[in-house]
């Protein structure tokens, strides 16, 4: 009644929609770095939206099924195959006992999500099954999946198939050159005029210092006029904060809850999931948008993809 990890891939973890209600104790949201793809996977398979999925990073795992079930893969295309048969993304497949799912490396985007008709068995910590690696809790013993790990599964009691909709949700247009919308943040004004303009025109590069907590961006240095003793303030996923060295950090789902660097811009919800698809070496630009426009875009997105609206 389980799934065996034959090879783990680069950084494969169990995730879900993340934790809420614990930020006042320093506990980050965690959950899928690309929430859109995670929710799409569960939705298309008819799973409850808070079901746990497997998140794969850059290079996916090889999994052996010890029980028959259905699977569906979304997000970045890691060329998934079952027993050498090529799979389409965003389409459900039945797997039999002994079948092997083999995923390789992706060229566009960074993360894939595998949803399962069975429920993955892992203890929720503070209301979520998502893995938070810095503190090693949640998911599979708080760790990235290793060769030989066996993930127990149980039949899901409430499967309501939405497969008829699957034709409408196909892969998103992943790229190596991203353009994200952003709203000026609480400390936007610590940038001088030319740095404000630069922030919305410069092409930054995603550095190798990138993980689920945040991506360090490389570009022309922003001129941050700030005092050394700015006290720590609340932070959320999607915030671009900038230390004094002028190299900004775009925060992801494991973002710390408080921080002392100026919060320059905020990537709004309708674009935030794309942060989870940034890969080292990609380029990224920011385009200014107002709060009202961002909410309007979010509502438009929810008309096409109702599964994003459960927050």
């Amino acid at each position, binding site marked *: 009644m389980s799934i065996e990890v034959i090879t783990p891939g680069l950084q494969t973890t169990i995730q879900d929609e993340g934790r809420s209600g614990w930020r006042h104790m320093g506990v980050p949201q965690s959950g899928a770095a690309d929430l859109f793809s995670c929710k799409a996977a569960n939705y298309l398979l008819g799973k409850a939206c808070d079901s746990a999925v497997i998140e794969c990073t850059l290079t996916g795992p090889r999994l052996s099924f010890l029980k028959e079930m259905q699977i569906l893969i979304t997000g970045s295309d890691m060329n998934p195959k079952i027993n050498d048969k090529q799979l389409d993304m965003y389409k459900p497949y039945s797997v039999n006992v002994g079948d092997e799912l083999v995923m390789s490396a992706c060229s566009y985007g960074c993360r894939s999500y595998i949803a399962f008709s069975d429920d993955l068995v892992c203890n929720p910590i503070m209301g979520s099954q998502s893995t938070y690696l810095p503190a090693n809790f949640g998911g599979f013993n708080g760790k990235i999946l290793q060769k030989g790990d066996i993930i127990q599964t149980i039949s899901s009691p409430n499967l309501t198939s939405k497969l008829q909709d699957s034709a409408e949700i196909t892969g998103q247009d992943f790229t190596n050159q991203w353009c994200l919308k952003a709203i000026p943040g609480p400390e936007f004004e610590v940038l001088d005029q030319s740095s404000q303009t630069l922030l919305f025109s410069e092409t930054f590069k995603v550095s190798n210092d990138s993980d689920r907590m945040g991506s360090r961006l490389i570009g022309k240095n922003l001129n941050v006029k700030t005092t050394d003793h700015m006290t720590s303030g*609340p932070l959320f996923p999607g915030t671009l904060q900038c230390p004094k060295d002028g190299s900004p950090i775009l925060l992801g789902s494991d973002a710390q809850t408080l921080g002392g660097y100026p919060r320059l811009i905020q990537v709004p919800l309708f674009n935030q999931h794309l942060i989870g698809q940034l890969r080292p070496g990609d380029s990224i630009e920011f385009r200014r948008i107002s709060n009202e426009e961002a909410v309007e875009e979010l509502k438009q997105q929810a008309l096409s993809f109702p599964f994003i609206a459960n927050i």
Partner: protein
Amino acid sequence: MKKIVNPPIIHYGDDALLVKIQHLALTCKPNEYALALLAYLRASNNDWIDVVPAEESLAVRYSPFRLSAKEAYSNLEKQIDEFDYQPLTQNNQLIHIPVCYHDKFAPDMHTVTQQKVLSREEVIKIHSSITYQVTMIGFTPGFSYLGELPEQLFMPRLAVPKLHLLPGSIGISGYRTGIYPLGGPGGWQIIGCTPMKLFDSELNNPFKLSTGMTIKFSAISIEQFQDHQNQVTR
């Protein structure tokens, strides 16, 4: 308590609001107000997915599918208006935390002694001679902000944050000292490390420290640090 007029609330992205407490006309310490407001908002309202207090501000996160930006703003404004600040009852429990200030655990000690023109012994003495209050929890699970640090040890944040700190690292920044219960990145100047486990997700209450507690550091040798770690893992 002075009545608050026009609370300085600003929008933070499309799903959060930020209260700038330092701009309110208050007679109490901003962080004490933040903690009391946190308790009030968490007890009285379902609008907020998360309430995040900080030293001089507080943020709430809401669902833009359930509340418009205007509604969220006016709801929060009304709540702050109705909120009658009472100091939270202090938790006077004194916790002793052993700290090893050996070079191995104190990558920024040299910078601190140079900039402050103090010897290591003086830095250790100043840091471990007084008691601190836990003024805030946040950043990463269980990270504790302690105050107030004596002015002789005020240091700026690092211009470039470190990527990998040891669990238990003790840092200083401005008028705060803080404990990183987990490894990972951090931007404070690190002057020591405690072997004490301050966050344990296996426990019903994973958090050893909570706001209001009183903390006293005691300097230990590197041998004592290792003994302590061996005892814990045994």
